[in-house]
């Protein structure tokens, strides 16, 4: 069989380097120019907040794609799925971004701790000191979880990131070893590890979303939030997988992938976009219905206070109505053009969803969607694509030995 190994052409490499350069220049320029506190902020409370918020949006989004690819990988092992073995290398390559994404995420949180930015209110000790003019009773009452010298927060943050990365590394290592050795011993070991990862991830997917995202609105809380952000990142990961599969297929790789595999990936995108819509809507509806001031503030900010309404409903339409109508039929899920088109649109849609999670809570009314936002996103995209392309070259795209190899080659539906 031809084209077993992926070649990272210099053209593709130059494109990713170009994107990274755009991103780097944008970030530097943003830090240089984003110095004057806009309306609603004082010089004391504005530390390049727009730029930091952008970095947070992108680091969370791209780390999330890698993380949810790892989750999808574990899910395939535990559920003993055979069809996905054909595209195994693709989601393994996407998960390889996790260590780098986790490092960037960690650095951005650390920058908050050393007061380079103040997106996380609880990191400021004055706020929890009684008698201080900044004292905030609500935040002080959450001291046990956010605060207490911040050691608990950092224990959690480092714990999630390190354990996720270790699991991801282990999965890849054993998967490559299995390709040489074959047999079922390693496969069952993968299953056991995957089950352990899923248990750990079940808790930490929610708590990490609370710690890094929901804590931007530290007064507010929602029990749906963890699942909502989990579903958003999951669909982003599924779109990334499908776009990479289609890209490789067009370039003449992945001979083992037939229309039934593509159809199954399309079904995942369709199903998870419903999961996301369900969670988004349920969070919205319950808060809208009860209309309690301490809960409604989240949607008050996003719908009425700061002119986000158009963007908010655009995000919902892009991520729910659009894939529902376009991916409903069987033929659409097998059509490369349709899948690429819908995939690109909802990829942007879910990036905007993370944008909507972060911006109203950090820069409030002073939001933009111009060169800083787009440039930073392109920079992260370039880094992400570079790492994933590099990871694709590390192993033959065609699986050599796997217990389900025969079944996946004959996958027909």
């Amino acid at each position: 069989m031809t084209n077993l190994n992926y070649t990272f052409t210099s053209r593709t490499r130059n494109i990713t380097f170009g994107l990274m350069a755009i991103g780097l220049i944008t970030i530097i320029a943003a830090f240089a120019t984003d110095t004057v506190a806009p309306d609603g902020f004082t010089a004391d409370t504005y530390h390049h907040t727009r730029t930091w918020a952008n970095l947070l949006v992108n680091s969370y989004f791209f780390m999330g794609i890698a993380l949810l690819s790892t989750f999808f990988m574990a899910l395939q092992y535990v559920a003993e799925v055979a069809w996905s073995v054909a595209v195994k290398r693709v989601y393994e390559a996407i998960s390889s971004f996790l260590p780098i994404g986790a490092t960037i995420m960690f650095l951005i949180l650390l920058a908050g701790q050393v007061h380079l930015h103040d997106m996380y209110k609880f990191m400021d000790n004055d706020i929890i000191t009684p008698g201080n003019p900044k004292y905030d009773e609500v935040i002080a009452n959450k001291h046990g979880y956010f605060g207490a010298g911040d050691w608990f927060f950092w224990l959690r943050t480092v714990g999630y990131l390190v354990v996720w990365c270790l699991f991801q590394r282990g999965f890849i290592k054993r998967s490559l070893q299995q390709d040489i050795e074959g047999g079922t011993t390693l496969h069952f070991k993968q299953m056991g590890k995957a089950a352990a990862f899923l248990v750990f991830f079940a808790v930490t997917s929610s708590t990490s979303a609370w710690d890094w995202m929901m804590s931007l609105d530290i007064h507010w809380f929602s029990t749906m939030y963890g699942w909502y952000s989990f579903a958003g990142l999951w669909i982003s990961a599924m779109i990334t997988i499908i776009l990479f599969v289609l890209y490789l297929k067009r370039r003449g790789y992945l001979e083992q992938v037939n229309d039934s595999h593509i159809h199954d990936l399309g079904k995942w995108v369709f199903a998870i976009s419903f999961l996301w819509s369900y969670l988004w809507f349920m969070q919205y509806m319950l808060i809208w219905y009860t209309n309690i001031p301490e809960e409604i503030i989240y949607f008050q900010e996003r719908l009425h206070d700061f002119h986000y309404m158009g963007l908010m409903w655009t995000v919902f339409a892009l991520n729910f109505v659009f894939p529902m109508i376009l991916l409903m039929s069987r033929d659409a899920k097998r059509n490369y053009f349709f899948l690429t088109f819908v995939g690109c649109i909802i990829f942007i849609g879910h990036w905007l969803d993370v944008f909507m999670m972060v911006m109203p809570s950090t820069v409030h009314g002073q939001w933009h969607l111009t060169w800083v936002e787009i440039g930073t996103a392109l920079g992260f995209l370039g880094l992400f694509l570079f790492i994933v392309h590099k990871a694709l070259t590390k192993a033959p795209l065609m699986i050599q030995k796997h217990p389900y190899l025969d079944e996946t080659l004959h996958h027909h539906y």
Partner: protein
Amino acid sequence: MSKVVIHAIYDDEEPLMASVKSLRSNGFQIKDAFTPFPVHGLDVAMGVPRTRIAICAFIYGITGTCLATLMMWYMMVHDWPTDVGGKPSFAYYMNVPAFIPITFESTVLCAAHGMAITFYLRSWLVPGAKAKNPDPRTTDDKFMMVVETKEENKANLESLLRTGGASEIHYK
């Protein structure tokens, strides 16, 4: 010219599939096939047209959406405007989030029931319907293909079936 109906029995699904393909390439039409379990790709090999039940499901679903909307608009807005939780129903769109769960449930209910009922009626699986299976062994371990052809093609067909691996051939 009289017609003959042939029941060919197979012991396995692979010879059945191969036979279906060879008969079709020789210009014969397969009338039906009876198997103990679903054989993947058999419908395509037999030339059965794609099911249109998905189109029915879509129509039933849309019907459910419309019925639910009409019902709630009539009950909650038009006939007896109700103020629940400080949200008076002056117009349907104002309280639309509250109506979404019921709209969804009604859509699913109509689509699912409509599909099931359509399927039963279309394949005439109604109470008291006679079993159409000509040989009860096809519910256990035999595979059967039903072919209808003209009297003059009988010999040709039979030789095709025999070489295809049919274990029994019955004329009806």
